[in-house]
């Protein structure tokens, strides 16, 4: 089936808001190429469980597409139209299971050497779409905070190497009460600008006391969910005919209730957390990976105004079978390795924050927990410099925000 054959009743299985959205834009979807439409449906089908920022992006994208003339559609989608699709893919249930289609399309593009052409078409489309409707600036300049090195007593090698060129390095910070200071600063912003899912606290270990105004995702709090997922995976892996691709498809279909999450909880956040564990590679076993990936996904999807990420220590590397079986409860932590993971994770947090609208006004702080080393990036802070000022984290925050 091709997009031109789409009918409203084919979306009966979609959640209500997603169905309404797609049906309202059916005439537009019918004009688009098959190499493109399932990717859009993959986002739309989860519309009911998307963050507000994502909903806005999807609605705007559909509105933009609806405003295009037939000639403009031909022009915009020329690259996608030139991608050939196998008849097997064409006949698959890409309306009901767009995510499965997209995964299979990816494998097909690799094997037919069309990935580069598809990538070019996607990049050009993204650029056009953004210039047609430039994203709105955030209501408040964004602030990213990364706290790294929890539990590390001494570390003498240089830190924040990737970030130094972008900000000011401090090595005489007063570390007392640092976690509380930074969490309080996040809470103050959340209270002053109460945007739904706008202010986040991601914890790679045991969460500290924090304001309920922050959206919190914690590695420790998700322990029962992770354990349920690992049990589920073990049981699937042992099934005849199971392979990596089949397992991936199975995981993509898991819902919060399948992993014992509270049905009365926040449905949007619960879905988000399940996706972190079922789509993220390594998030199930390494807390540093979990924290970094959660930050990436929160920034990409929720576009928060405030994001505080505290990296925790991760367990030492063991064999993958042992890690996945979750059998050894006496965990041995790799503190210095976790510090390096988190240092890179903080760099990625900053990169991902800078991909969002308003990046020129954004600020970012990374602090070596319990120690005097920090780095701050902000519109009014010098780049590539070091400061020997004695200061607490409140002062660094105020300098970074400007």
């Amino acid at each position, binding site marked *: 089936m091709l997009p031109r054959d789409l009918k409203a009743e084919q979306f009966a299985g979609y959640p209500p808001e997603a169905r309404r959205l797609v049906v309202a834009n059916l005439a537009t979807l019918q004009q688009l190429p098959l190499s493109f439409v399932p990717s859009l449906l993959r986002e739309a089908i989860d519309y009911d469980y998307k963050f507000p920022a994502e909903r806005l992006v999807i609605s705007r994208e559909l509105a933009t597409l609806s405003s295009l003339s037939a000639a403009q559609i031909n022009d915009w989608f020329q690259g996608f139209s030139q991608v050939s699709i196998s008849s097997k893919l064409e006949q698959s249930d890409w309306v009901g299971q767009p995510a499965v289609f997209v995964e299979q399309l990816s494998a097909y593009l690799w094997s037919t050497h069309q990935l580069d052409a598809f990538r070019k078409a996607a990049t050009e489309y993204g650029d056009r779409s953004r210039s047609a409707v430039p994203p709105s600036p955030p209501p408040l300049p964004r602030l990213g905070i990364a706290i790294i090195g929890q539990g590390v007593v001494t570390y003498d090698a240089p830190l924040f190497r990737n970030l130094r060129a972008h900000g000011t390095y401090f090595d005489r910070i007063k570390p007392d009460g640092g976690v509380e200071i930074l969490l309080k600063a996040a809470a103050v912003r959340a209270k002053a600008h109460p945007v739904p899912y706008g202010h986040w606290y991601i914890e790679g270990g045991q969460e500290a006391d924090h304001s309920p105004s922050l959206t919190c995702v914690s590695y420790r709090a998700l322990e029962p969910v992770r354990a349920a997922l690992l049990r589920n995976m073990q049981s699937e892996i042992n099934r005849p005919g199971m392979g990596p691709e089949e397992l991936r498809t199975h995981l993509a279909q898991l819902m919060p209730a399948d992993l014992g999450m509270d049905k009365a909880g926040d449905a949007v956040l619960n879905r988000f957390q399940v996706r972190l564990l079922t789509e993220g*590679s*390594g998030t199930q076993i390494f807390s540093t990976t979990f924290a970094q990936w959660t930050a990436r996904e929160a920034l990409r999807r929720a576009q928060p105004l405030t994001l505080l990420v505290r990296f925790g220590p991760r367990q030492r*590397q063991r064999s993958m*079978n042992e890690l996945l079986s979750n059998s050894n409860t006496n965990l041995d932590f790799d503190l210095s390795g976790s510090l390096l993971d988190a240092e890179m994770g903080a760099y990625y947090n900053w990169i991902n924050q800078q991909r969002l609208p308003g990046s020129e006004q954004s600020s970012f702080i990374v602090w070596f927990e319990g120690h005097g080393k920090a780095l701050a990036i902000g519109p009014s802070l010098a780049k590539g410099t070091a400061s020997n000022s004695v200061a607490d984290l409140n002062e660094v925050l105020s300098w970074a925000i400007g």
Partner: protein
Amino acid sequence: MSASPFVRGAAAARKRKVIVITFGGGARDQETFAPEGQENIPHLLQELAPRSSFFTQVVNEGILGHYVATASLATGVYETINNFSSLPPEHPTVFEYFRKDLKRPSSDAWVVAPSNGFNRIGESEYRSFGPGMGARVVLPKHLLTAAMSGSTTDYEHLLRDNYETPLYAPQLAGNEFELQQLETILKLSVDDFKAHASTLSSPDELSMYVARQLMRQEAPSLLWITMHDIDVAHAGAYSLYIEGIRRTDRLCAELWKTVQSEPEYAGNTTLFILPDFGRDSDEDSGGNGFQHHRTGDPASRTTWMMALGAGVREGVVYDHPMQSTDLVPTLGAMMGFSPSLAQGRPIQDLL
């Protein structure tokens, strides 16, 4: 009376040996040969690179999965087999060309490979080549599993597997065939093998131990070693990725020392070292930096290669691009076989 030049020439060609080390876990320039990464590769940089012809732009235009990319390196054709299935390459491998054209026995071409899936890398099913014409394949982790008779508790750190799909870790299997390899080919008793394995810290160390043992006992003319530790990057822990690079750096230097010290190899061996491809760049929003190689961006497609030893000019850096598929035709030109179905071209700088 001494032999004629023709006889001496034939003997020299027969003695020529090639070892290829690939990293089945791409490594980015910024963690290896770029200035900020050089601290991770002291051995490659200071000991091997000055003796090598170094190619700064090896481009892989195929599928960026480790098994299929290794198969592409070994056939000289961008293979399209399913990366996660246990399938042979679709085109003849370098081992088949080598053995068929030069009439070499199976003991003269060996592959030391890391894991499940790679057990089919030794030969294709291509008509007129295929079964019985390829390399013998040894999977050290399977050897160890067989030697342990199922009880692997003390050796779990040597059996790490399937980084590319960290959510899927099938059980390793070892059987009588592996045990026979251990005793009849590697000339190792189960007890000696277990005792030595207990001193090692990673699967690649185990692979190198087995490779060295093969060099001593079988002295194959064509030896292909695929390393895998670096691919722990898929689990997202940067420190473990760096640790993998540093270990691989050390193991490459150790293997080069073995080449120098083994009479069968010293002076007549060319060593190739190359990652199978790179990893995603930090800047590509479709990826997650070092963790994967899924975007197909230039950083994930481009890597480096060094060649050193017999017949190779030392201390030369080549910046012009070459393809991953150029390796097999180059080996053919060096060793005297004709990889007729390979798509790449011989690298003239090495001939």
